[in-house]
């Protein structure tokens, strides 16, 4: 039997790696992938608590999170394609149209 807080530590570590990826990388596609890492960390936590409380509500919420991840990936990648068509770059530092 594995204690629940081990899973929480795993979720924390995955979440932090995702945050580091979002904050430090310049490639927009890899930033999106880091967001997927963050969502997976959330899923680990949800499923760990679902197992702890012996219900499946947490798993249902994890399914909603996966749905959101799919929607976010589709729209985000569409945005990247539109951006690449206009600016010929995937570098987040060069996408500064709104910067004064």
């Amino acid at each position, binding site marked *: 039997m*594995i*204690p629940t*807080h*081990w*899973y929480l*530590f*795993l979720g*924390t*570590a*995955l*979440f*932090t*790696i*995702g945050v*580091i*990826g979002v*904050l*430090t*990388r*310049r490639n927009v*596609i*890899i930033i999106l*992938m*880091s967001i*997927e*890492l963050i969502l*997976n960390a959330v899923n*680990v936590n949800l*499923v*760990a608590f679902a*197992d*702890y*409380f*012996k*219900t*499946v*509500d947490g798993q*249902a919420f*994890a*399914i*909603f999170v*996966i*749905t*959101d*991840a*799919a*929607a*976010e*990936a*589709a*729209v985000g*990648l*569409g945005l990247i*394609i539109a951006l690449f*068509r206009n600016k010929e*770059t*995937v*570098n*987040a*530092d060069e996408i500064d149209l709104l910067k004064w």
Partner: protein
Amino acid sequence: MLPQIAFFILSAIALVSAVMVITRRNAVHSVIWLIVTLFAVGGVFLMLHAEFLFAVQVILYVGGIMVLFLFVVMLVNLDVAVKEAQFNRQWHLALAAAVIVMAELGYGIYRGQQGFTPAQVAGAPAVAGNTQAVALVLYRDYMLPVEIASLLLLVAMVGAVIMAKRKLE
């Protein structure tokens, strides 16, 4: 003892490949490493008795979303992006801030771990089989959220088509 070993192996695979995802120069390599991470997280789901979620993870995440990522990486494949600097200027500060956040969260979990030991709250699912239990919860207790999620997917689909369209008439 065996579950602990399996947990540590899966965690190590997930964390190492997650680090590989955010450090690789080539975006295609990042996608491959992210697939490894997702499989390891799926294994953790299996250890937590979430068999249906494991199947969803493999079919939807690895089979669907990551293929979408690979398509886009191939579409916008830039030789320039591989050569230039991969990390932005403020990465020291970002790394420090993220590590501080991890330390805070980890300390909180470490301090609160005694609260996890006894409980094991009652309320065991009446039906046998994880898929059946998830389906009952989804379509009975969370009927409205499921409908909203389906609407969200529809909107996302239309949005993606409009974004990626060449020209709007």
